[in-house]
């Protein structure tokens, strides 16, 4: 054997998982919802998504180039951030808004702290909150241009968003079926609860995310709504709370962001619990009808502490040496 051999540390086998595969899973899981949005709201939904994803990737590319760092757009994390940001915006938003949002998410929240893995809050959510500076644009929701539930005989007259109704202490005018199918006003990613659930399930089955955060987040909201309904029957009220706003998107796609959530199962349960408590608290008592973004961002800030408090149980801990 006259060739040179590679010498490296063990292990010499790798399971094959790569960061960009995980990010790709998230993009795939979000695609059905994006398609439904463009069906419901027209091509503009695709346009907003394209501008948001495109600018996020471009800003990441430019920043890394300018800072003479290796380029990281291939890890697809910027694309995920861009798409999630688009899902947090209404369809009729002026197109400069997603561009500003992407800049804030990718450059300010992520790259200035060192890039993927170093940011301490979810970039897309932080950008969304930053964009509240132009709150008129963010809270003017389009009604679905096309409402296929009409053909199914469902009631589809939309006025305020379902969350605004809940906030006012009344059940929304939409039926629960419409809520599930996406025929309601709201952000792109707030509409099609069923497809978001399917996407979340896909991620769970693929092992891309684990069950703890979505279950404890949604479970906490469900239990609290069931115990303290503000309108209608407890079960009905609970279902409306679960299907309204960005809760499903938040619980499966935003709160589960690896970088900004705890690493242990116990920590994830606590994190989801905190997100759920804060969401209900803000929805009920806050000045703004939706609390999912804020609750996740606040819990993001506690991740370091939660990680520290929920270290896994070490093998052989507590035992005594006898020799």
């Amino acid at each position, binding site marked *: *054997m006259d*060739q040179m*051999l*590679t*010498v*490296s*540390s*063990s*292990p*010499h*086998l*790798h*399971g094959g*998982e*790569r*960061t960009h*595969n*995980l990010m790709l899973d998230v993009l795939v899981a979000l695609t059905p919802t994006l398609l439904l949005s463009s069906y419901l709201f027209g091509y503009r939904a695709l346009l907003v998504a394209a501008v948001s994803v495109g600018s996020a990737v471009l800003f990441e590319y430019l920043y890394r180039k300018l800072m003479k760092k290796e380029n*990281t757009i291939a*890890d697809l*994390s910027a694309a995920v951030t861009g798409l999630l940001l688009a899902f947090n915006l209404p369809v009729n938003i002026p197109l400069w808004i997603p561009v500003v949002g992407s800049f804030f998410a990718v450059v300010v929240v992520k790259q200035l702290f*060192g*890039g*993927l*893995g*170093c940011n301490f809050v979810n970039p897309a959510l932080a950008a969304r909150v930053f964009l509240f500076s132009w709150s008129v644009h963010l809270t003017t929701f389009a009604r679905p241009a096309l409402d296929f539930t009409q053909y199914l005989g469902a009631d589809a007259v939309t006025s305020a968003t379902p969350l605004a109704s809940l906030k006012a202490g009344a059940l929304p005018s939409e039926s629960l079926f419409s809520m599930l199918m996406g025929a309601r006003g709201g952000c792109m990613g707030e509409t099609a609860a069923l497809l978001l659930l399917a996407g979340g399930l896909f991620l769970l089955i693929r092992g891309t995310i*684990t069950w703890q955060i979505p279950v404890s987040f949604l479970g906490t909201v469900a239990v609290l709504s069931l115990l303290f309904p503000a309108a209608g029957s407890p079960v009905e009220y609970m279902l409306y709370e679960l299907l309204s706003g960005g809760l499903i998107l938040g619980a499966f796609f935003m709160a589960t962001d*690896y*970088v900004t*959530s*705890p*690493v*242990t*199962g116990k920590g*994830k349960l606590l994190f989801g619990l905190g997100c759920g408590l804060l969401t209900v608290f803000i929805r009920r008592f806050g000045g703004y009808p939706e609390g999912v973004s804020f609750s996740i961002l606040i819990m993001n800030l506690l991740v370091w502490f939660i*990680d520290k408090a929920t*270290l*896994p*149980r*070490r*093998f*052989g*801990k*507590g*035992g*005594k*040496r*006898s*020799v």
Partner: protein
Amino acid sequence: MRFHGGIHPDYHKGATSGKKVEPLPPPELLYVPVSQHIGAPAEPLVAPGDKVALGQLIAKSEAQLTARIHAPVSGTVREIAPHPHPSGRRVQTIVIENDGLDTVNDEVRPCPKRPEDLTFDELVALARDAGIVGMGGAGFPAHIKLASARGKIDTLLINGAECEPYLTADHRLMLEAPESILFGADLLRRCFEMERVQICVEDNKPDAVAALQAHLADFPGAEVIALPSKYPQGSEKHIIKAVTGREVPSGALPADARCAVFNVDTCASLTRAFRKGLPVHKRIVTVSGGAVAQPKNLLCRIGTPFSELVAFCGGEQGPVGKVLMGGPMMGACQFDLAAPVIKTTSGLLLLPEEKPRPETHCIRCGRCVRACPMGLAPLHLKRSLDCGELDGAVRLGLRDCIECGCCAYVCPASLDLVARFRVGKQQAVRQQKEREAAASAEK
């Protein structure tokens, strides 16, 4: 009972698990290193020009923790000099010119006692005189393990898990010499005065379980357990956990969990020493890995250069990326195939060339935490070490790391976690020694 964490890698055992062990003809020159075990190197008892016989003691040490070395063939000592060693270092090596006669040393004779009359001290002496070490790959001298476990254990386990991918040396031994394993296990059981000894095999080797079970009638104290296949089932700590539910305390020995674990090949070596008086002078080596033409299980003399094994298996097939001694999860890379088979060589793997997998940034996905069988948080350990916080890493359990490689196997960022932890552990040991030295200097 199961242990937390672990992984299910592709086992790749099919290439050799059905192949009978073939004897590899001993080469003309054998390179017998004086260090093939954990502990002090042995000191040569022979000089260049001396005639040696097969099984003759050629190196020993008076140190506490050490193992004896014997001549694997008969012939003449040609030189004693540093030579490439599987550890990557150059180690003092006794080079023996094989005379091809395999003349057995006069002192090699069966144990005169009946197995039921063997005392514990005699068993310890038997293991010591035969140079038996942990044959699973750890290389801990068996006589020291025996002595340290004496009177402290209530569970005796025989490790036939062989959880490393590719390796089938123990598997073949269980299929081809089950009686010899059970006999050795029974010797251990008698000497420890235990009622039973449990032979633990992963359930992906049902034929090995059956082969052992077929002989159980002759060994009423023995029992075969099929454990779920999961890496690192064969780790001493985890096999104890899986069978008894007990955890060996951090930094302690199996005896602290009232257990002793011996490898199946260690048992077979005890049998050989008892029945024939033969010390460890050969062992089964799995030659496999995807870049070798004919994967085989070979019975090799200790001291046979790796190049001989590769040649006997038809040479390389396709471009070779790495050559490993041991399994792909914990094995060590070889850069010089002049290095020889030693007592702990369970496998020689030729892995095909692979695209390099560059490290990217940790994304905190938590896969390493779920995979770590020691309950550590590898990402936190890495972070501490990257920040130069050695004490912080030690507090997080750095020294508990068994370097099994599960964390690196699952890491989507391809981080070289084990390499960092290995270096960190060495630094921690050095730092502790320095602090102890400084503390004693102050007194």
